[in-house]
């Protein structure tokens, strides 16, 4: 009986195995890359807002973060300022600028401004700003240089792996408490030593990896 397959078929068979497997791996790699891409994570993508509020501009004027984000030291949420906070100044300056019309409309009608959320954790994650500030985690550690952003974008993915970096080794990130609002803070060269001391001073209990307890974030 004649051979069914020509010897060249061997090459085709081997090739198809390589191509098939390679394709599968390639797809997975591609998929992974896509998942980590800015397109999916929305990192570095400025978000349109109802009023093109510039943190860069307002920070340059010397406003402290806490002038608007009032509850950042006391509660889970940093707090988005009520229209009243905007009107404190903008009833006097730029009070006729067309760009601020939504703010004035909100003030007149009593309906809230609607901002697009930039940093949005999943519903099953319970993050608390106050406890992180208290531990010596600065604004910029998660939010980046907001003082240099005209429109805010996400600097970090805020994926669980990002959170765990610090929850595994807080000494790599902790800074003195008086530096948490310092936008321009640079880590010292000997951060690990300084950090370890700060972890002790700030009473961060890391025994048994307790910062990795699931319930710290998930309840």
């Amino acid at each position, binding site marked *: 009986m004649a051979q069914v397959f020509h010897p060249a078929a061997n090459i085709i068979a081997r090739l198809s195995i390589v191509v098939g497997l390679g394709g599968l791996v390639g797809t997975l790699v591609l998929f992974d890359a896509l998942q980590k891409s800015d397109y999916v994570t929305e990192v570095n993508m400025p978000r349109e807002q109802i009023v093109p509020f510039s943190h860069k501009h307002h920070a340059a004027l010397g406003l402290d973060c806490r002038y608007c984000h009032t509850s950042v030291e006391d509660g889970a949420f940093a707090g988005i300022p*009520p229209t009243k906070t905007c009107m404190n100044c903008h009833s006097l300056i730029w009070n006729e600028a067309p760009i601020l019309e939504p703010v004035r409309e909100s*003030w007149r009608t009593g309906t809230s401004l*609607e901002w697009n959320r930039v940093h949005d954790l999943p519903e099953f994650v*319970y993050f608390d700003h106050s406890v992180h500030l208290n531990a010596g985690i600065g604004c910029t550690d998660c939010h980046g240089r907001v003082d240099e952003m005209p429109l805010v974008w996400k600097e970090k993915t805020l994926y669980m792996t990002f959170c765990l970096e610090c929850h595994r080794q807080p000494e790599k990130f902790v800074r003195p408490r008086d530096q948490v609002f310092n936008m321009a803070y640079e880590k010292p060269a000997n951060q690990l030593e300084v950090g370890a001391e700060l972890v002790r001073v700030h009473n961060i209990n890391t025994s048994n990896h307790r910062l990795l307890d699931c319930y710290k974030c*998930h309840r």
Partner: protein
Amino acid sequence: MSSLTPSTQNTPASVREQLSLVEARQQLEGQTGRRFWRSLDELSRKESFGDLLQQEFPRFSAEWDPMHRRTFLRLMGASLALGGLTACTRQPREKIIPYVKQPENMIPGKAQFYATTATICGYGFGLLATSHMGRPTKVDGNELHPASLGGTDAALLASILTMYDPDRSQSPRRKGGATAATWETFDAELQAQLEQQTAAKGAGLRILSGPVSSPTFLALMKEVTTRFPSAVWHTYEPVSRSGWYEATVAAFGQKLDPVYNLADADVIVSFDADFLSLGPAHVRMARDFGSRRSVEAGSMNRLYVAESQMSTTGAAADHRLALTPDAIESVARAVAHALGVAVTGSHDTPHAAWAEALAADLKAHAGRSVVLAGEHRSPALQALALAINAQLGNLGKTVTLIKPITATGASLADLAQAIDAGSVQALLMFDVNPAYDAPADLALAERLAKVPFTIQHGLFDDETGALSTWHVPASHYLEYWGDARAFDGTTSLVQPLIEPLYKTRSELELLAAVAGRPGTSGYDLVRATWLDTLGGDLAFKRALHDGLLADTTEAAVSVSLAWKDAGPGETPTTPDQLDLAILPDYAVADGRLANNGWMQEMPRPITTLTWDNALLISEETGGRLGLATGDLVELDSGNGKVTAPVLVAVGIPVGAGVVHMGYGRTAAGRVGNGVGFAVSPLQTAASPHRASVRVRKTGDGFEFALTQESHTIAGRNHLRVGTVSDFKADKKFVMKFGEFGGKETPSIFPPHDYSQGPQWGMVIDLSACIGCNACMIACQAENNIPVVGKDQVRRGREMHWIRVDRYYEGRAADAAVHHQPMTCVQCENAPCEAVCPVAATVHSTDGINQMVYNRCVGTRYCSNNCPYKVRRFNFYKFADHETPSLKLQRNPNVTVRARGVMEKCTFCIQRISEARIKARREDRAIADGEVVTACQQACPTRAIVFGDIRDPMSEVSKRKESPLNYGVLAVLNTRPRLTYHARIRNPNTSLETSSPMESSHHGA
């Protein structure tokens, strides 16, 4: 009565074999030591019950819903394909919507607490309501308020769900609908009606409400009577207390209210009084009662109960008799006679020994005892109780009498007469539902139709609303301003937590309109009442903050007994009839909470029945009448008939039956409609709580949803009970039960290190637990626990994280009842953790068995491996994600679980986190008592203690040191963090000579 149609599948008779009394008795004979049982099936050791035990989830839980295998595979294939795709969706975009002007002192995401007041039958009850960003999410007892002292009950805890009930009435409605029904048209029509009434001085005007303690309401009522001198106010409460006032008039010549001081009572006697669950002071009385149930803390009280039902009070008793009301009265008369009270007629009773022992005990504790009689029972019985108290010198010591707190008007029967006489032209009804719950002989539904102009003001457009000219929606107590007085006179303000969700008005606002002041706000009305009395704005704010007005308790009235026994007030029922007790339900009360899913699904104490009422009869009565659980019977009182399913229960007197009010609603809403059967056809105005009925079997069957056999861990010594003498003889008698600490066995898992930081633990004192289920509903409110419905409960899929297990002990005829709240015990060596393939349940460093919902893939291995059966699985999407109003109630700090996810108690991890973060922010350790779990907070008897077991000074550590402390199934070496204190009873040695503990024990 849709739910009473015969079930098509598995009539109970075929599922469970008929229970044989003889068999059950034989099982008990030859038993030594303590033997606990959960159901009559278990007592008789049915084979089917054995099968039940083998299953993870009992009965039909693992059964497929009717579906062919091929359909299933097709659907699974499709959902796999689609499920993979849907996983690719991106996180939905969200908006942040800040305030325009942010309220002062508000920190977004932080709960705020406000004191307010709920009313129980007109009496005030101080609450502390939790508000998240303006949404009230939970109510708890106000620690400063004398009716609460921090505790609550299930009904109060569930009252918040009623506010968010999507079936609540949202706008006025006029019968016929010819006029556009708005508040404006209503106001115009009301004022026109009132104008007409002015000429006749209001002779045709009637107002019907429940009894009222609110000073503002009563002041407005005075204004109404000034404007309409001939108008009449009627009051009506389905749970009748009229016998009580008749008794005080007979005994002391005036209407009086009682204040019982159980904290100072060494001996408490209840003649059919369910004082731990009923009445305006029951939470406080439970607290005082519980405070004297610790054998270690000092002298225990002793409770004697003679009752016609199986109540939570009866379950808490040291000595209990199940008797019909007439027999209870003869016991009371015998006790009175033995104490030297002059009684007429016979004082013979078959229970003479019991009565004598009781009388001797009372005599020994004269001035330090309390005798209570059920306020729904005859005035004669209650007067006897008062006479005994007077004879013992208890008056002014443990029993104080004060002027009535609630004002009452003319009766409902008077109203019925007036309607017949044609003298009622306009009738205004506040928060009453006589068309549903009035006794049948008053035929209120027909009579209401004869009144030309009727207004029903209520939360729901209910049975009465359907018959009224106008239905106008009422505000919930968390939405309006008001005031109320508690059982002891303490006055408190009703402070709203939220603007009315719908266009509703409060009673006060409506009454002001009748008084000639339409449009006056509730706030102005209440302020006008109190501002001057209190002496200014600051004091008003103080009263709002504290939740009560200082020094407003009512002074005791000094009385002298002027009473002559007029002979028996209760007559025996003829032997061919069933002596029926018609009682308010533990869950839905008089039907007010019928549309409350939490209450419908709460297993009723003792019976563990959900989503139904039933005719409860004892095994012996069932044997006589040839009835078994699940039989449908017709009850005929001569005045009316109802069809009821039979539930054979423990502790019901022979020849008697018990039915509960509040079911068979037709206009309650989507939850309450058609659940159970209405009992009002059996009630009469003269005897609303007792009837003689003939029982006829219809031949049809009925399926109940009972939780008593779900999650059974029978056959082990998880319950430990002893008496005071057991304890005195051997402080470590609990050890005799055996099953203490298991051996350390080698493990493939690394050991946990519990040496650092707080280590959370809990102790539940079984001596103090009264099985009231407040913990269960508090947990439901706190942890966003869904309601699953009757069918799912029947399959054992109820979701309650904490359940109250109920055990019987002894013979079926006079079994003792024990309660054991059971929730995740947070094993240090947790069997569930070892089997989770995705590490969705893992241990925290502070000793909590964490449940990570977002990781759970629903294998249910953990539940299979849990020896305590405390894990709950979302077989379906049980949580309501759609109804907007229900979303408002949710606790934002707890994840709302989706389908296919396992869940369980986590010791209120959100509260632990909150305390931990607060302590961190303040650079200190968490103080003892700072973390209070929801169940602990609600418990009226303070049976639950929670805290850091690593801190030797903490309350929980001290409790764990007690010799009464034991862990359930500790023999498995699970090292539970939740442990129990054995239940200690305090029986009278002259009645219970030999303690079962003295005989031999199994185990050890």
